[in-house]
């Protein structure tokens, strides 16, 4: 992990004074224009806030791999504005407090141009205000609705992954039409889960259905059987979304509880991200449905963009690492890193970005974006970006488990997930 090169503790007061004087003298000399020149060749530094430890570790590992792969491609193709891209990765322990510290470190210690990569919504909520205060453009890859809700600030953007509100809005008609009208929801008891609770309930009612029970589970819970009796017997569809290290236990215990007489089950793949669908105890999932941000298993009609993306990141046709078939990726989310990096690249190129003094220009350039076509840069699908709410919208996939694989049944249109703007960040000053 790169650390600050200067260690003030080791330097005596005298040497510090000396070097300060020397630096000041150097800067005052005519012709000292290292960063003022028109074309700097110094790398563009992207601070990567990664959940390397804590409950988001599995996501962090794959966000890291995706980021590395995308940056390699960007650099091989000449970098951004002719400058190489350097990733400065810092672990935030999936912890909001630590997250804010990491953001601060990016700006003050590493002199990063932008911050990027946060997934877990409570960490985003903890970090984004700090990014706004120190005016560091902060690109989150989180699916939380917090960006578009207006709760954050002009410096925080989510241009690589659709938010939960849009996801559930676009999928609710399918669930209501094909699975059932009486829904019981099971979700983690914090911001991300509450997004699901609020927006899916609203979407269900808008489609003539009813959420008959909402079961909130503390995010640190390790045993789940005790929650299942709360599922009312008349439930037609169980809607589940869980995160964290205990997801496998959750799904397994649900199978144990229900056995063959289960209601329809619609899950967010979050409940099984980084988990092998063929783990013992998961057989009961056959025939159930999942939301996928991007289809984990290679589909029959695979396009070239998907092929290109899988090859670059090192993911096989089953969504696992090519070097270890047991190492299953977080395929439904990590494309967001890839796409966000390409948005940063496009934004910096449009803004003629040279250094931190152009941060506002960068944000304005991205706010001006609208259509992002399905391409190698956007392998998950075409996107529409809303500059006012700083949120991107893309297609969603509904897959069915068939023979131990997820097979896409329905792809939503981008417009299915549109909702009225709740904020306009462009009216905020920089």
């Amino acid at each position: 992990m790169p650390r600050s090169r200067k260690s003030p503790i080791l330097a005596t007061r005298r040497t510090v004074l000396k070097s300060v004087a020397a630096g000041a003298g150097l800067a005052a000399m005519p012709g000292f224009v290292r960063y003022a020149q028109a074309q700097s060749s110094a790398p563009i530094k992207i601070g990567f806030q990664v959940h390397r430890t804590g409950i988001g570790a599995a996501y962090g590992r794959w966000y890291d791999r995706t980021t590395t792969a995308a940056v390699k491609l960007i650099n091989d193709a000449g970098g951004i504005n002719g400058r190489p891209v350097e990733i400065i990765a810092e672990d935030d322990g999936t912890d909001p407090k630590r997250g804010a510290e990491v953001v601060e470190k990016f700006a003050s210690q590493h002199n990063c141009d932008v911050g990027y990569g946060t997934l877990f919504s409570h960490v985003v909520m903890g970090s984004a205000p700090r990014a706004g205060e120190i005016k560091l453009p902060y690109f989150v890859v989180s699916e939380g609705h917090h960006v578009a809700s207006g709760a954050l600030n002009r410096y925080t953007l989510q241009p690589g992954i659709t938010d939960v509100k849009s996801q559930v809005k676009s999928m609710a008609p399918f669930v209501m039409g094909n699975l059932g009208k009486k829904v019981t929801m099971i979700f983690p008891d914090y911001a991300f889960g509450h997004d699901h609770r609020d927006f899916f309930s609203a979407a269900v009612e808008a489609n003539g259905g009813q959420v008959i029970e909402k079961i909130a589970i503390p995010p640190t819970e390790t045993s789940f059987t005790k929650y299942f009796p709360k599922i009312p017997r008349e439930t037609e569809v169980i809607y589940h979304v869980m995160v964290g290290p205990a997801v496998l236990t959750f799904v397994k215990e649900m199978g144990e509880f229900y056995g063959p007489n289960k209601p329809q089950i619609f899950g967010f793949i979050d409940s099984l991200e980084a988990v092998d669908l063929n783990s013992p105890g998961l057989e009961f999932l056959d025939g159930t449905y999942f939301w996928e941000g991007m289809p984990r298993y290679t589909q029959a009609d695979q396009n070239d963009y998907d092929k290109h993306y899988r090859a670059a990141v090192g993911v096989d046709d089953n969504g696992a690492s090519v070097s270890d078939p047991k190492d299953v990726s977080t395929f439904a989310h990590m494309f967001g890193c890839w796409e966000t990096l390409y948005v940063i690249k496009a934004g910096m190129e449009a803004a003629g970005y040279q250094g931190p003094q152009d941060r506002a220009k960068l944000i304005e350039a991205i706010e001006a974006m609208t259509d992002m076509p399905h391409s190698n840069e956007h392998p998950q699908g075409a996107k529409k970006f809303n500059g006012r709410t700083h949120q991107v919208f893309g297609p969603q996939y509904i897959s069915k488990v068939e023979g131990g694989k997820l097979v896409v049944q329905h792809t939503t249109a981008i417009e299915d997930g549109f909702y009225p703007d709740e904020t306009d960040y462009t009216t905020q000053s920089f």
Partner: protein
Amino acid sequence: MDFGPYLFLASLEGAVTAAVLALTAVGLSLVFGVMRVVNVAHGEFFMLGAVVAWWVASYAGGHPAIGFALALLIAPIVTGAVAAVADFLVLKRLDYDPERTIVATIGLLYIIQQTVLMTYGPEARPVEAPFNVRIYFPWFGYSTYKFFVIGAAVAILLGVWLLMTRTRFGLVMRATQLDRETALAFAIPVDRVYALVFGLGAALAALAAVLIVPIQQAHYLMGGDPLLLSFIVVIIGGLGSLAGTIVAAVLVGMSDGIISVFFSPTLAKIIATLLVALVLVFRPQGLFGKRAL
């Protein structure tokens, strides 16, 4: 769900919690009883047991039962050995001074946790259950493996009780617990007894973890909850009293299961903690503890 089956499920869940908790807490209680050491690293020994179990099971191959059986054997031995070494290297040098050993075991907690993070990694990994059969009651299904956990815990606890009451080593332990100086005068190698007891306490936590790891997964942060609950149990039962520990484990485990099912898991934790406070105020030596001499 109707009240009857609901209560039945709640009791089953409570019994599993109680079984695992009893094993873990007896280890903690034993260490405190004999050595007067408050082992804050106890939860990490639990975690270490689970991680070793994963390692053993993933290298064993073949039927999952083989890996599990090997883990049941190897994990407690490895964990016990680590604990015995820690006792020799750290606790012994501190002369088992109560305050300093608390700080030392906090240090041990972080060393074990971070070492596992660096080697095993931050993932949660499952160990396959030795058998994967479910029974279907008319109202709900339940894994038979959970019944096995309850049975195995009872068997192990019986073993511990026999060890304490029927063997020479148990006699030596009880003698050391009763009066360290007199035991020394009777040529009991107290140092070695301490190392063995510390190892045994850790091994019991590891055994509990091996039993639980096919239900939950091995994860480097999994030691926190068992530590907290073990302390709750040991304080309610009376530090150093094995019978009290087991009664308190059943009490806390069952009430945790039942309250979690009927009300909420948070309420269960609140009540357990409240119980600790009440015990500390009205009966500081615990339900079964003897007043300090």
